[in-house]
């Protein structure tokens, strides 16, 4: 502790689990927006990752509410948020936004996308897998041209609805923080927008990472046109994201409101590693420079020509750094907003526990869980182009 903080502020109320929540929903929104590139905007290069991006979004979305539930003082009362939501509360909409996104957008889109393959797989397989795939068709086994055309149109429309929904899902998370007028670190109209673009960045980076890593593990060639395109999109999204963050930063600095002194102290002290080193330098500037140099973002063949193998590794490295950077953003927003006193006269510390409901171990499990779910989903619904069923 440093300076004066209100006596009730000694305990930080939103810890690591609440850091996970915007991180995970960001990945969901970002992965979905990436998927929609192929579907709605017809970016053919990224087609190999379309299904993977959908499944990634689904896997992470299934886990997204868990950190929040684990963090509640009374998790068993959480259903009240559906039954008697306070319509004036930014948080009350969580359940509805989540349910809408899960049920109406993701599950429906995955189903329409996979229906044809499910029917064909069920026809050609034996044993439990046959029954699993047949069950997942929900009995809709019509593969006539008309039915398939309907699947396609439905999938397209769901994606069109899905894009604003993804924006809503994560912009909304940003609003939960950005609308807290008591907290000068959070209270910013830019918060939902910054959240959204950082979500897009994290989603693209995650799918790029999983795609390249999975291809290497499966000993399949990486489609470099796809990886290059993803890297270029990642670069553009990062430029927008970083510009917005810089705008927010410069705006605060220029306005120099009464909170500026304590916030400066916090950035120079408590948040130096996570904000300056991890978020800005390692998580943003380094990958930006690398991607700018080797990806086709700035010139068709890349500013510096590099062999595909090296580029692949650089992409993997950049995607990892970007994840660290985005996680740091969530950390800095959620915890940074509680490290200074609302008296603006002092700073407190966050003590990370190893065990316990809000400890490091729990957080690691919750971060690992979506990858396990994704692995299962990939087994049931192979997203690879070479796995697509042919008649």
């Amino acid at each position, binding site marked *: 502790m440093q300076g004066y903080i209100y*006596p009730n502020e000694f305990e930080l109320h939103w810890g690591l689990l609440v850091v996970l929540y915007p991180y995970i929903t960001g990945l969901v929104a970002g992965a979905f927006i990436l998927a929609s590139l192929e579907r709605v905007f017809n970016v053919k290069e990224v087609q190999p990752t379309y299904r993977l991006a959908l499944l990634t979004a689904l896997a992470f979305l299934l886990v997204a509410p868990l950190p929040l539930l684990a963090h*509640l*003082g009374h998790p068993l*009362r959480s259903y009240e948020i559906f039954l008697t939501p306070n319509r004036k509360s930014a*948080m009350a909409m969580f359940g509805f936004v989540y349910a809408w996104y899960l049920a109406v957008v993701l599950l429906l889109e995955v189903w329409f996308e996979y229906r044809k393959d499910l029917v064909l797989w069920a026809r050609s397989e034996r044993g439990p897998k046959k029954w699993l795939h047949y069950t997942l068709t929900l009995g809709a086994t019509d593969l006539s041209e008309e039915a398939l055309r309907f699947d396609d149109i439905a999938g397209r429309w769901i994606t069109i609805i899905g894009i604003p929904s993804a924006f809503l899902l994560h912009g909304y998370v940003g609003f939960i923080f950005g609308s807290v007028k008591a907290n000068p670190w959070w209270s910013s109209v830019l918060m939902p927008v910054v959240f959204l673009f950082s979500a897009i960045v994290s989603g693209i980076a995650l799918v790029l990472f999983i795609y390249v890593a999975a291809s290497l593990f499966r000993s399949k060639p990486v489609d470099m046109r796809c990886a290059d395109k993803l890297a270029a999109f990642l670069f553009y999204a990062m430029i927008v994201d970083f510009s917005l963050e810089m705008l927010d930063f410069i705006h605060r600095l220029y306005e120099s409101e009464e909170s500026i002194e304590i916030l400066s102290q916090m950035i120079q002290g408590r948040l130096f590693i996570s904000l300056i080193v991890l978020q800005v330098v390692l998580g943003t500037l380094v990958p930006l420079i690398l991607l700018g140099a080797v990806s086709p973002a700035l010139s068709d063949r890349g500013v510096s020509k590099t062999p595909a193998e090296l580029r692949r590794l650089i992409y993997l490295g950049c995607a990892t750094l970007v994840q660290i950077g985005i996680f740091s953003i969530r950390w800095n927003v959620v915890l940074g907003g509680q490290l200074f006193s609302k008296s603006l006269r002092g700073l407190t510390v966050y003590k990370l526990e190893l065990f316990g409901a809000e400890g490091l171990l729990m957080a690691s499990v919750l971060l690992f869980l979506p990858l396990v779910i994704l692995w299962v989903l990939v087994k049931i619904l192979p997203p690879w182009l070479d796995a697509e069923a042919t008649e």
Partner: protein
Amino acid sequence: MAEARDRVKAGVRQPHEVVAGARPPDEHEVDRREFLEQTLKACGLGVPILLGVIRIQDLVAGEAGQEGYEPGEHYYGMGVDVGRCIGCGMCAQACKTENDVPLEPHYFNTWIERYVIQTDGEVVVDSPNGGMEGFPRAQSEGEIRRTFFVPKLCNHCEDPPCVQVCPVGATFTTEDGVVLVDDDYCIGCRYCIQACPYGARWFHPEKHVAAKCTFCYHRLVEGLVPACVEVCPTGARVFGEVEHRATPLARFMRLNEIQVLKPHLNTKPRVYYANLDGEVR
């Protein structure tokens, strides 16, 4: 001005006499007569003021407790005279006892801050254990220009951000203007704690719900004033009706220049400070 103050003080203390309405009615009547006589002698006040005093007795929560409490007939607020606070910490102690607040530090419905303003402009603020045991002698590196104590508590805002953000509506404003938390309903998300600009909310370590000052609502419905007001030895805290004219709080607000904490946030606090320094946040 001094006379005015005395009048205010008389007004401030008076509810306590009335509030002790828990006593048998006969004794109550005698006390009131005695009190009025003494007041008349002491202040030499005229009949109109006296009438006003009598009205105060009708208006403070005093007798309502005996006849059934009607929330719609009240609208409460608190006045805090910073100039009168001596930092004894009795309010914070009484609050913890009255409201079963965990004794460990860092759980406070009300606390006292000490401001030490040095001649070089440096401001040092502290609140050791919420000021519950009073304050040790101020240790200041520079020359002290002035010091003062500021009692803090939930501001029972008219537009409370905590109520706005509660996802399930577990925290709410009562008809009589008190912000409360329903323990059986709160899901423990702690958004309200984040939304409170005054650090007035805390998380109950055993009940796992948000907790805060209730203006001692259980006492209000019995016709008593909050415990912190009851025990304050200097009358630094004034409790009463906001809207009626002849109440201790109304007088306090008439006779003092009133400020609220963080007015720029537009929460419209109902804890009104007199003699508040600009350094207080």
